[in-house]
């Protein structure tokens, strides 16, 4: 018996061709992801100039980040991401559940309704929200006509508006992964749980929820991480009193005197925080899987 056979000619060719096939993507990542990031890393250690940077090593940017000067934007961004994720989860779960249990034909129609918003450009959608929420906008008009309010509400340019639009934009990213696990859920398991004495609420928490964990993980990743770096939505419907990390980074580059090192350091800090979040979630997920592993 041969202990370990050498790779056959076919295997070698397979290896070679898979390398060749992934080469374009690898080159792409190298040019447009890795190298730009290296530039960002280098810039974060330089000294700011009015328009550009001076090539002198400096830790000033990091000193400022870690001395707590930018705690508020980070705090706001985290709060926004957590609220958005929670709202998406709470709103998205019943929707995903309902679609998963619907008849086959209705299922596809409903799924299309979830996907339709993607057909319109994000900025156009955000601007329609601005029209809808503005001081003399549709929502205020309806409420005034109904007599619910006597004066228009200031909704646009509030933190509430930011969360509202964030949830609107990210809801499909939560619903779709949840749907994909709930669709595979065997609903007779719920019958079995009820047969064994669990009422609807207990059956949900002991059967449906644990079996949907993978969808919750996936949905949370898809919503939480982009929400953490949100720029466009706070910029277009939020106010200047609460600036989120994404906005602060942009201002450091846009406003003169420019501060490239500061923007870079903030970006990298955000990146590290996202990586940390990913690690934590990965750990949680591994623990969840480990409980299902062979003894």
């Amino acid at each position, binding site marked *: 018996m041969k202990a370990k056979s050498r790779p056959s000619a076919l295997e070698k060719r397979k290896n070679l061709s898979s390398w060749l096939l992934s080469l374009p993507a690898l080159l792409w990542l190298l040019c447009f992801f890795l190298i730009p990031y290296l530039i960002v890393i280098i810039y974060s250690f330089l000294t700011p100039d009015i328009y550009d940077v001076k090539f002198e090593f400096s830790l000033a940017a990091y000193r400022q980040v870690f001395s707590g000067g930018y705690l508020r934007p980070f705090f706001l961004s985290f709060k926004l991401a957590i609220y958005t994720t929670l709202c998406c989860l709470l709103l998205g779960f019943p929707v995903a559940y309902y679609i998963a249990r619907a008849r086959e034909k209705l299922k596809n129609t409903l799924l299309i309704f979830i996907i339709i918003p993607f057909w319109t450009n994000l900025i156009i959608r955000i601007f329609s929200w601005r029209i809808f929420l503005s001081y003399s906008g549709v929502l205020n008009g309806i409420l005034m006509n109904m007599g619910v309010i006597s004066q228009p509400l200031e909704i646009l340019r509030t933190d509430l508006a930011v969360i509202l639009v964030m949830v609107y934009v990210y809801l499909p990213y939560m619903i779709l992964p949840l749907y994909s696990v709930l669709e595979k859920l065997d609903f007779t398991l719920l*019958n*079995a*749980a009820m*047969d*064994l*004495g669990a*009422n609807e609420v*207990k059956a949900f928490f002991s059967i449906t929820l644990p*079996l949907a964990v993978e969808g919750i993980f996936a949905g949370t990743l898809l919503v939480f991480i982009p929400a953490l770096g949100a720029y466009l939505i706070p910029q277009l419907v939020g106010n200047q009193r609460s600036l989120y990390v994404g906005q602060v980074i942009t201002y450091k580059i846009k406003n003169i005197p420019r501060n490239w090192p500061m923007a870079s350091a903030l970006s990298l800090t955000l990146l590290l925080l996202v990586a940390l979040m990913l690690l934590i979630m990965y750990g949680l997920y591994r623990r969840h899987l480990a409980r299902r592993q062979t003894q």
Partner: protein
Amino acid sequence: MEDIVLENVSKDFGVFTAVDGVSLTIHSGELFSFLGPSGCGKTTLLRMIAGFETPSGGTIRLGNQDITDLPPYKREVNTIFQNYSLFPHMTLFDNVAFGLRIKKTPKAEIKDRVREMLNLVKMEDQANKYPDQISGGQKQRIAIARALINKPRVLLLDEPLAALDLKLRQHMLIELMNIHDAVGITFIYVTHDQGEAMGISDRLAVMNQGKIVQEGPPDDIYERPLSIFSAYFIGETNFITGQVKALYDDYLELVCDDGGGKSFELDCSFQHAPAVGSRVTFSLRPEKIAISRNKPRAQDDINMLKGQIEDILYLGSHTQYIVRVGKLKIRVFSQHKRVYFDDKALDWEEKVWLFWHDTDTWMIENDALEQLTEAQLSESGQLSRALKRRGS
């Protein structure tokens, strides 16, 4: 003592009536089966007893309690599901403990009772495995333990063996009977497999198109079917039609037409006496007929037919002969028991005598063949005859 009482229970799904006015009493400690083809309403009936469906009409009682509108989790009834429905994210221990945990039973007691249950189903050494790590038969055992640990008054089994292969099915059937004897509660068993139902049940109900066609002990239903459907669905049989010539206390004389212009006479037993001169259908089970190339010695030629072998199907434990008598085709099962050692096997085209005991010819009903659908008739080889009669 009665455990489950169904009173005029119905269930409609839109225009389709799944269960149509079923009334039935199931006694305490009984192993009762619902037997019928798919779509006959047996599973719907079971789901109504379990609480997963609400009846459109009628009442269901468990002992003295009306449970018609109770949700499943408030009934002292547990179910074994067709695909077991074990919780995939829980160990076998946690699966079995589920019902007790819901009831907030103390931990120490849970541990003891789960062990006890796992012992009952011989799975005590697998408690920490997950459902996807065990075989179909083992899943079945866990499903039984998970249900019985709640000490239900009634255990419902929905085609519990359908997913297992033949050998395992036979084995589990015996095990189910043993478990039934050990726990002593009422079992209600739903199946489309007549072998399972006959083997396991104290009593069974044959269902067709939402109605109970006949209920009783298995041998009663097999030997004395009251309708053409029970005769057709359980086991195999020959249906022959004839005219009543004379009526006696416990048998009647029939004149039958073999379709080829000849008539023959036979004796037949019955449940309800028909009028002299009326046309009736009777059932003659293939295994009750003796087949021989020599004419049997008898005083008269009643319950004796001469025919020709048209087909021979060797089936291992027995052989099925299809014997043509006039235009009738009669099926005969003959076991391979050799009484005379110089017996030569019967062959194709051979002329044979068929004969049977008086009481094995069982009259069912007047013109009963009209009740079977065309598909069912063609399965039992009676289609052409029935169609001809409907046409004439």
